[in-house]
């Protein structure tokens, strides 16, 4: 009786051992692919400062679609099989991994964003710096009143944050710098440095630090109305020509007047190579009163000798 019971128990134990050897945890094998399980779609937009040549900052608005892919990495599935060395317990136990056919192992889950350009925001009503404006047929918005340029009239201001948005797509920020002394930055291979848009760059002006600078041979031509209606918006264009033998470097001008509306306006020219000319235009809203407004333009070469180019001007308002 006892032998029979012992025999049954041994048979159960042997069967259990065999069963264990066959039902081990599945293991991850070779990476096969990444599968997208779900994709979330979000409509968005982006805007940035783009190059313009009319002294008016130009912003490009474009639709964006942000696709958020929920992904999982797929691997081969392996099964662990223990090969018992039953006859000689002193020897090492060996494990075999057997590929399980038609089954895969799901590994790490992750999400990945993909931004898809949706084209220009054509004729779209947007809020730009707390004002409602419309983009044009190419998705551009021109700061036609030079409000961004005006923010930089204070020379202490190094950068300006612009906020734009539209009702259904939310709000975006853009930081614009104004760098009057640019230096060459060493480019490291493989390192992409995202540059903040620069106002002077966007105007196509060269404000790199010049090796030599001389105001000799520089001449100024100011185009501005001598007479205008009170309250009108008038433009003052200053054209600087360099007939000298050397470039004039990092050239700026600024208006001075007792009349606040016309005073403290910056004009940017940058480096002007010999034989070249650069012009810059500013818009000015004249005060609502008749009389003569006197104003002067002073010039400053940021790193060079001070040019004596003061212009004495006036506008008669009616």
């Amino acid at each position: 009786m006892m032998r029979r019971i012992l025999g049954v128990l041994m048979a159960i134990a042997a069967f259990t051992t065999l069963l264990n050897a066959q039902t081990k945890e599945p293991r991850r094998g070779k990476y096969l692919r990444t599968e997208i399980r779900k994709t979330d779609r979000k409509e968005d937009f982006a805007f940035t400062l783009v190059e313009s040549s009319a002294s008016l900052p130009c912003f490009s608005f474009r639709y964006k679609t942000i696709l958020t892919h929920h992904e999982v990495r797929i691997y081969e599935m392996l099964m662990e099989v223990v090969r018992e060395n039953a006859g000689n317990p002193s020897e090492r136990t060996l494990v075999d991994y057997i590929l399980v056919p038609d089954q895969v192992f799901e590994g790490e889950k992750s999400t990945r964003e993909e931004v898809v350009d949706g084209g220009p925001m054509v004729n779209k009503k947007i809020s730009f710096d707390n004002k409602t404006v419309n983009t044009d047929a190419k998705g551009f918005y021109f700061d036609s009143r030079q409000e961004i340029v005006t923010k930089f009239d204070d020379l202490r201001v190094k950068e300006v944050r612009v906020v734009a948005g539209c009702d259904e797509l939310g709000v975006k920020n853009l930081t614009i710098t104004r760098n009057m002394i640019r230096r060459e930055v060493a480019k490291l291979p493989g390192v992409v440095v995202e540059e903040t848009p620069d106002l002077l760059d966007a105007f196509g002006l060269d404000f790199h630090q010049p090796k030599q600078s001389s105001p000799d041979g520089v001449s100024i031509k100011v185009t501005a109305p001598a007479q205008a209606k009170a309250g009108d918006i008038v433009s003052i264009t200053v054209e600087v020509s360099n007939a000298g033998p050397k470039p004039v470097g990092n050239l700026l001008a600024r208006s001075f007047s007792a009349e606040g509306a016309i005073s403290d306006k910056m004009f940017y020219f940058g480096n002007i190579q010999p034989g070249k000319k650069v012009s810059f235009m500013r818009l000015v809203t004249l005060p609502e009163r008749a009389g003569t407004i006197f104003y002067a333009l002073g010039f400053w070469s940021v790193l060079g000798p001070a040019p004596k180019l003061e212009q004495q001007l006036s506008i008669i308002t009616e």
Partner: protein
Amino acid sequence: MKLLLLIILGCVLCHAQNKSQGDFPALEEYEKRSAVLKIREMLLNETDSKEKRDKNVQKIEASFYTAQRMADSDAQLAEYIRIRHAVQDVLEDMKDSTGRQVELSGLIDKAMAAGGLLPQVSDYLVEARTQLRGMGIAQDNLSKRMQGLLGRIKVSIQNVPPPRLFTSRTGIEFQLIPAGKNAFYVSSKPISEGNVTLDEAYFYARDFSQREKAVYKLPTMAEMKLMNQAGFKPICAIWSIQPWGTEDADVVRMTDRFGVKMYWIWDPACKLGRQPTFGELKFAKYPALGYYLVTSARTGWQNRWDKIVAEMAKQ
């Protein structure tokens, strides 16, 4: 005949030699008496002169004390000038007197050295010398007193306040802006009431100074503040010679960088439609922007002095 003439000439020469050797006592006595008489006369003159001078000095000192209490500055200044001349005359007189006294002293010495004087004459000469010495000492003291008085007159002249108004040589009236040591004059009317640039005003002031032989200029902001405090209100906005500046160092740096200077304008009636004070470019020209000229208190003072001295010279 020639021989006779030679003999006569020899006799004359011998007579002359004997005369010098005291061979004529009567003549000698006469000369001594004359010298003493001259000494006596000179001494009497000196004594008279001293008495007159002392009386004059008393009058001068009394006049000085009276002048100090005079209310009319012009009259006071004229009186000081007169007294100063009188003191200078006294000093000049004393200088002459000293010369005479030295001469007199020499005569006394000579007379005493000659000897052969009667005792009473000799005593008189000793007495005269003593009197002369006393006169000299008194004169020294008086000279010091007069020098002191001259100093006090000078201080008093300097302390005479400048006139409230004066008219320049070219007929422009200036009025005093009282401010203690910082007092100055401003033209009673604007030199120009408008349509004038700062450069034009500046060059006019420069030419005017050359014509007047005194410094006239455009006012600074500090002077404009004093004018305001004194209740002086210009009838138009006026230029200042002082470059415009604010407390904001960045703004000041900006004007320096770009090489454009602005200048203060004082427009108390806001005729230019801005604030009572603001900065303006020097080439600006408005119908209501003119200028006044200012000059130091010394100019008005000197102007009055010159006029008083000229009037006294005429008299």
